[in-house]
């Protein structure tokens, strides 16, 4: 039974995903505790990104992708229910992608876009505040405060990714999904993003897909190991990395495959 | 006036955006209602509800202006028995009225005195109708303008009134826009239907006068023989049989197109090979755009060039070596057309040759083949399908080309395969039969549509074949 007053931001069970006839996720159940960072790890093609994209229904965009399962937001909102508007869901569940994808607009407009379309700010001043605040939280404000009207694609890769995080924060989500957010970045930019994730977990539930096990151990408190569409093991990050229950997990962690 | 009213439609729709948004904002802040959508969307909502009905009515009034004019002038009030008139009589009277309308409003002409014969011959109601006709533009314009001030304002206020906090404007706006987008893409289909039906419809009319077999298999083309003997008997059936024979047009078209292809295929293909395989990038960057200029030059320019310089030049050269060459020889038109098609062949073949994978070239070089051997033995065979596709498209272009042959080829049909003799083409005859008097009840006009339909079918087959071949070819190397 699902606990209505749980401390889980998101609960999933019996999740199956098919691409056409090919099965991508096979009966996965995972719960994500509030204000904690959960890592999804596993070899490429294991279904971790697919699973992540189910959580804000980004898979809806792909025609052949068929998602089944129970997804409960805050213990009571079924995110695949027909009454739920996918746009409202994505307002609550933000996402940051593998490659930074700022809009080729100004830095300001990038952050302001979400609040604008959701009508979050009722005045220009309020909007300015939201933009400033979001950039602050993303640790980018000091670097860009003098060039808010520059085109965002002129920023460095790490800055772009932090801008995308600011863009996701600006609509005040409860959960932020991150799909290998550092895979296109250099080590210094990666370190900055990791610090940022540590700060953000105060206010947000973060689910991060990563192929870097060291990153998972640095940023997350819970870790889930996926293999061939199955959830192999889930638990405290420390435990998964030191004495996993399953041999498969151990093999992956110790670098025997993947 | 019609344009002015269009401007009004735009301005009024635009201003209703602000009005709708203002209304939504006042609901939110003054009455503390919760809005289901962003205030902007209430603005868009009003704009769409004003703009689309108005613009559709505007187009309707634009397109059917002449029908309204006819209704207005030929009103049953003036001509009680108008419904019983034959279309011939209707046309005659309409013609008379439009002639009258040019003079009735000249203040210098006093309608009551003098012997202005045309006025004397006209009945009272015809003169009134003529006056109406003369004033029609003004009346139509003003009523249009009035309509397009009142209508948008009315629609705008109604739409704005329907705004409430509960009304979720965003999905409605998105729904309307999605219909508009969908409708736009269906217009492409409607155009094809339009082409097909307007050709088929008039071609069927043509075949009511002329036997199908006579048209496609007779070798004599003398459309001027299709005259009316007298009103009761209609067309001279014997003459009609001999008037519209399609065969010499087809041979002329094919003759000129062949000359064109003989020029364009070797030059275009060799140019493409040179540019793709031999030329340095510098030469390529300069030569390619210049050759593509040839494709951008309007065909009327080629026609002028062919008629002015090429034809006399060929005639002189021919006479110099003792060959009788016509001033309107198929050769001149074909050469000009060939030059026009060179870039067409070269740029299509260039794409095709470049699509051949580099590994094939390297394989050939690795066994010691020279560049030309590689091209001849490996690249061209690999690219053959694509190149054939581009040839087919070029042939289709040549067959459908109009201005060059209208200006440089002959108007007289001539069943010949000698390029030094004059020849005529399908397109030339379409233009000739439609310049001047257009009468939709005369086979001389209608034959253009039968020719057009034949041309359309011929090019359609070539195009579909070419597009399919090229598509298959692309898929092979992707």
């Amino acid at each position, binding site marked *: 039974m699902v606990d209505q007053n749980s401390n889980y931001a998101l609960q999933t069970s019996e999740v199956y995903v098919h691409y056409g006839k090919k099965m991508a996720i096979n009966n996965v159940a995972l719960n994500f505790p509030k204000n904690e960072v959960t890592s999804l790890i596993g070899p490429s093609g294991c279904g971790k990104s697919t699973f992540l994209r189910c959580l804000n229904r980004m898979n809806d965009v792909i025609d052949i992708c068929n998602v089944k399962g129970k997804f409960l937001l805050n213990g009571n909102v079924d995110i695949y229910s027909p009454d739920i508007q996918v746009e409202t869901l994505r307002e609550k569940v*933000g996402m940051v992608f593998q*490659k930074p994808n700022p809009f080729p607009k100004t830095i300001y407009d990038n952050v302001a876009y979400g609040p604008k379309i959701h009508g979050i700010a009722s005045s220009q001043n309020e909007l300015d505040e939201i933009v400033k605040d979001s950039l602050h939280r993303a640790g980018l404000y000091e670097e860009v405060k003098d060039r808010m009207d520059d085109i965002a694609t002129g920023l460095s890769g790490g800055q772009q990714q932090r801008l995308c995080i600011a863009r996701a924060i600006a609509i005040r989500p409860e959960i932020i999904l991150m799909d290998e957010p550092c895979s296109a970045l250099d080590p210094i930019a990666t370190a900055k993003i990791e610090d940022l994730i540590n700060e953000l977990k105060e206010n947000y539930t973060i689910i991060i897909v990563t192929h870097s096990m060291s990153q998972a151990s640095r940023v997350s408190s819970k870790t889930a190991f996926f293999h061939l569409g199955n959830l192999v093991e889930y638990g405290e990050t420390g435990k998964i990395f030191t004495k996993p229950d399953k041999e498969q997990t151990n093999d992956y962690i110790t670098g025997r495959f993947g | 006036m019609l344009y002015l009213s269009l401007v009004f439609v735009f301005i009024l729709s635009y201003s209703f955006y602000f009005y709708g948004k203002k209304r939504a904002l006042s609901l939110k802040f003054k009455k503390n209602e919760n809005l289901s959508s962003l205030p902007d969307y209430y603005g868009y909502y009003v704009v769409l509800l004003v703009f689309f009905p108005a613009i559709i009515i505007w187009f309707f009034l634009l397109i059917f202006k002449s*029908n309204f004019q006819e209704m207005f002038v030929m009103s049953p009030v003036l001509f009680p028995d108008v419904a019983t008139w034959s279309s011939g009589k209707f046309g005659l009277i309409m013609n008379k009225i439009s002639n009258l309308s040019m003079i009735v409003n000249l203040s210098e002409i006093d309608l009551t005195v003098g012997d202005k014969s045309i006025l004397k011959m006209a009945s009272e109601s015809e003169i009134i109708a003529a006056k109406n006709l003369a004033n029609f533009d003004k009346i139509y314009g003003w009523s249009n303008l009035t309509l397009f001030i009142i209508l948008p304002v009315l629609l705008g206020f109604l739409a704005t009134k329907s705004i409430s906090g509960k009304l979720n404007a965003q999905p409605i706006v*998105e729904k309307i826009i999605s219909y508009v987008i969908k409708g736009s893409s269906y217009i*492409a289909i409607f155009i*094809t239907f339009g*082409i097909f039906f307007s050709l088929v419809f008039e071609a069927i009319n043509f075949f009511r006068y002329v036997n199908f077999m006579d048209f496609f298999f007779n070798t004599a083309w003398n459309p001027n023989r299709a005259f009316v003997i007298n009103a009761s008997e209609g067309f001279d059936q014997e003459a009609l049989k001999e008037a519209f024979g399609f065969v010499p047009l087809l041979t002329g078209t094919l003759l000129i197109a062949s000359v064109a292809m003989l020029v364009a295929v070797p030059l275009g293909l060799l140019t493409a090979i040179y540019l793709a395989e031999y030329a340095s990038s510098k030469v390529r960057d300069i030569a390619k755009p210049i050759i593509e200029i040839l494709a951008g030059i309007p*065909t009327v320019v080629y026609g002028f060039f062919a008629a002015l310089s090429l034809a006399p030049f060929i005639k002189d050269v021919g006479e110099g070596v003792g060959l009788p060459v016509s001033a309107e020889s198929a050769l001149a038109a074909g050469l000009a057309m060939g030059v026009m098609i060179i870039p067409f062949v070269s740029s299509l073949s260039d794409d095709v040759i470049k699509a051949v994978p580099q590994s094939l070239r390297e394989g050939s070089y690795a066994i010691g083949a020279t560049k030309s*051997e590689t091209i001849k033995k490996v690249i061209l065979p690999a690219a053959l399908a694509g190149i054939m596709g581009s040839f087919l498209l070029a042939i289709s272009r040549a067959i459908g080309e109009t201005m060059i042959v209208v200006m440089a080829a002959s108007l007289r049909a001539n069943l010949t395969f000698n390029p030094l003799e004059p020849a005529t083409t399908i397109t030339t005859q379409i233009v000739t039969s439609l310049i001047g008097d257009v009468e939709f009840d005369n086979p001389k006009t209608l034959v253009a549509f039968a020719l057009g339909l034949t041309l359309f079918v011929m090019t359609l087959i070539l195009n579909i074949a070419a597009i399919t071949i090229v598509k298959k070819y692309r898929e092979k190397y992707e």
Partner: protein
Amino acid sequence: MSSLEKRLAAEKRFKFYGMFAMTLSLFFVLILMYKIFSTGSGAFVRTTINADVYFDPNFIEVSSNSSKKEIMKASYVDLADQVINQNHPGLDEENFIKVREMYTRKFDYQLRDYIVNNPNVIGKTVNLDISASSDLDQIVKGNYPRNVPEAQRKINDYQLSILDSLDSKGKMSKTFNFWFFTNGDSRDPETAGILGALMGSFYALLICFSFAFPIGLLASVYLEEFVKPGKITDIIEVNINNLAAVPSIVYGLLGLGMLIGVFGMPYQVPLVGGLVLGFMTLPTIIIASRASLRGVPPSIREGALAVGATKMQTVFHHVIPLSLPGTLTGTIIGMAQALGETAPLLLVGMVAFVMEIPGGAFDPATGLPSQIYLWSESAERGFLEKTSAGIMLLLSFLIIMNTVAVLVRRKLEVKW
């Protein structure tokens, strides 16, 4: 070893063929341009004859107090004859006609236009450059040979002697022919201008753009962004590719058969011409716009969707603005093609003799290319020049439009 030599010789030969073909193609461009420019440049210059014009009140029906309308309406034929008599004293009737032929037939209009602009001139003598007739113009420009028997000349011996005496007095001169840019068509080559045709083409292109651009853009958005690939899109796809290859004359038949025949739209007007050109341009725009939409990376769409934008917002806020430069480039290129299209204009009647400059899309008009065709069919040598000059103008517009298209692409297109 001789076999290798043979092969290398074949290699050289083959390369030479390729170079030869390319050079020949380039040569065609040059010769075409040379021919057009050498025949057309004369049209920008007009021969004039200097004459003292006494605006004799006895021969003018109006006074300096007359309204502009009255001045426009009055006849100045007698005044023109009087001017000729004054400048060539002692002509008998036969010679008078010969001399009159040396001046433009529109002599009286030229005088009228002068009075309209300077009403106070009546009763005074002014020194004016009067336009020569086209035949004289051609002799002066050297386009007609002088040393052929009189019977083969348009200008007879007497006229030549007058010409030479005028020339020796320094009365013959050449001026820039601004009439070519400000007049409508005319039966007389010296007064024929291109403005009417230019405006006709302008209105037609305006209609063409307002039809084809919005519909082409929205149709491509539907096909690329909204519809799932299937039967209907396949049909539309094949359809559009075919429409792009249908001969332009068939579009003309569509205009004549459907717009004029069925909808009863008027003949000879830019509205119909423009719509037909719009039908023709639509596939070009759709194809260019779809390619441009496909160039917008999916990550932009995902980014917008991930912050909760609807499909429609994603497309209208992000995808369309980013694809617009490509669409615009395609549109301008399509419009340039439409500007050069002649055959459809011929069929919808935009090829008549129209003197007035059209004031809108409902006025009878010709287009730039159809005017070129009309002039090329005229027998007078003077129109040959005009035809080439018209072509020069048309080509310059095409070059400008294509340059703008390239610039739009270079300056505005977002690189990924």
